[in-house]
């Protein structure tokens, strides 16, 4: 059922939601941008609708809520191993269509690939998703070509409409609350974009053979392996285990998992000095093919959801979408035997 709200009306809903949930949405971090006097849009906890940034893409994705950049798994005291406690509240995450498609990718890895992940499942089972409608495409977005511009699997949608807010609800339990605080019921369809300025074309018949192409060599010099593309990506989910002990008492410590990047040195290092993919071009190839080729081979859908955040953040102005568009030529190059 769809509803129209005034600002006060929707704030009354958020207030009630906050009793049971932590509400996360894109918020403005003043002065937090890469350049002086620029802001950063990141996920943060909100209490009121005015705090939510509706008209810009968030620089970082929602994934930090489901997979915190640093998450304590266990506490160690002497011989005791104690699981870190779960948050007593669930979470409501406001996110765009591409990001909600990203959740499906996270689920594939964390719920289906091998054992179910205890810590992810514990959070995930208590999360509701509120879709932020996209009234326009942002710079570097290419969701339409990735087929992630629309989605139905939301609990509710929310966007601005004139002075008010419109919401489409799919969560039966919320109906009485929404009806109570809305101005009126109406038919609401979340906005979505139907075209983006940036286009990508993933060639048919892509195979790992494309690894032999020369297109990757250019990234040896251009990429500085900072890993920012991984950290902003809604579907990059790698982590490294990190154990620590407290300096005040070495008998007590904890085990965490912290976000890891396949672009950064050390990612493949094995004990004794071995490592794989030493060149940045090889790392770029590994990342790009994971996003638009081999994830699909394993899980049936492309990992990349076309949010374009990697292109937004790269300090070397390397464009992931440009690279994807070069794959067709690279494939021909390899097939024609022109490869190295």
């Amino acid at each position, binding site marked *: 059922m769809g509803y129209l709200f005034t600002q006060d009306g929707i704030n009354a809903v958020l207030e009630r939601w906050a009793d049971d949930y932590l509400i996360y949405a894109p918020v403005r971090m003043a002065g937090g941008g890469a350049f002086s006097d620029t802001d950063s849009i990141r996920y943060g906890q909100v209490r009121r609708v005015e705090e939510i940034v509706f008209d810009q893409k968030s620089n970082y994705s929602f994934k930090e809520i489901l997979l915190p950049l640093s998450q304590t*798994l*266990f506490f*160690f005291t002497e*011989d005791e*191993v104690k*699981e870190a406690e779960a948050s007593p509240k669930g979470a409501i995450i406001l996110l765009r269509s591409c990001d909600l498609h990203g959740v499906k990718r996270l689920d594939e*890895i*964390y719920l289906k*690939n*091998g*054992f*179910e*992940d*205890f*810590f992810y*499942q*514990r959070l995930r089972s208590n999360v509701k998703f509120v879709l932020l409608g996209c009234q326009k495409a942002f710079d570097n977005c290419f969701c339409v070509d990735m087929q992630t511009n629309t989605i139905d699997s939301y609990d509710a949608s929310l966007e601005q409409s004139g002075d008010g807010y419109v919401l489409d609800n799919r969560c039966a339990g919320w109906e009485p609350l929404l009806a109570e605080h809305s101005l009126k019921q109406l038919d609401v369809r979340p906005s979505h974009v139907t075209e983006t300025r940036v286009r990508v074309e993933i060639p048919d018949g892509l195979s*790992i053979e494309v*690894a032999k192409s020369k297109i990757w060599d250019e990234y040896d010099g251009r990429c500085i392996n900072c890993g920012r593309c991984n950290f902003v990506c809604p579907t990059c*989910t*790698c*982590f*490294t*285990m*990190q*154990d*620590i*002990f407290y300096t005040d008492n*070495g008998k007590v*410590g*904890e*085990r965490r*998992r912290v976000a*890891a990047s*396949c672009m950064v040195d050390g*990612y*493949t*290092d*094995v*004990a*004794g*000095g*071995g490592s*794989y*993919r030493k060149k940045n071009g*090889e790392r770029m190839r*590994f990342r790009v*093919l*994971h996003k638009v080729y*081999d*994830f699909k*081979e*394993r899980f049936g859908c492309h990992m990349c959801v076309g949010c374009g955040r990697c292109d937004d953040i790269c300090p070397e102005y390397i464009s992931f979408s440009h690279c994807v568009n070069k794959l067709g030529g690279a494939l021909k190059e390899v097939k024609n035997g022109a490869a190295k």
Partner: protein
Amino acid sequence: MLQNEYRPFLTEIKEIVKHTDIEYTFRVTYEGAVKPGQFFEVSIPKYGEAPISVCGINDGTVDLTIRRVGKVTNEIFQHRAGDRLFLRGPYGNGFEVENYKNKELVIVAGGTGLSPVRGVVEYFAEHPREVKGMTLIAGFKTPRDILFQADFARWREKMQVILTVDQAEEGSTHQVGLVTEYIPRLALNNAGKAVAVVVGPPAMMRFTTLALLKAGFREENIWISQERKMCCGIGKCGHCKVNDTYVCLDGPVFNFTKNRTLID
């Protein structure tokens, strides 16, 4: 409540065998199904976890051969018999001995690579009639680096054993040479039907498989075991992924026809 696969369980160290200064075998209590070539995450609270392959499976215990090369393994080496050790696992696919039965089998191991494949060697040492012929080629850097010294004498009675070192001091009684040198000299009835297992450092595996192919082995009759960084062992952390393959879930043992497609 969902089981937490990250929670390690306690085992007791029953015995420690010292092979070299930096390589010991830890025999720890473990009841449960486990196959040669699978691995455990040895978990040292406050220091970290390291994936260690199973090198021996006994009644109520498993053997883990560990090389002291980092923070976690340093800490493991502080443990003594009777101490307790946390583990998770076993993970990975391991070796299927069925693949090698009633065939001529060649196992080529380099250095600590012998430890994941040792379970297969032991199986056929105990059941020599289940293979049509067996050769073990084991290479180490120097005589000081040889692992499982005591086992070799026993194995020699059950199979053809070639124990070789890359270099030895003058006057040494050890055979000197790379494992690849012995492959063309293998006396096989039919290399086209023989099976091989190759485990060792990446370069050694690459040249050994090339030598085997040249000697007439078919790609589908060669198996290898891969080593990668693994933080979780259960398909989540991503470090071991190669193409669409997770070494921790789909490996570490791969048939060569699959391994050939794994481009790091």
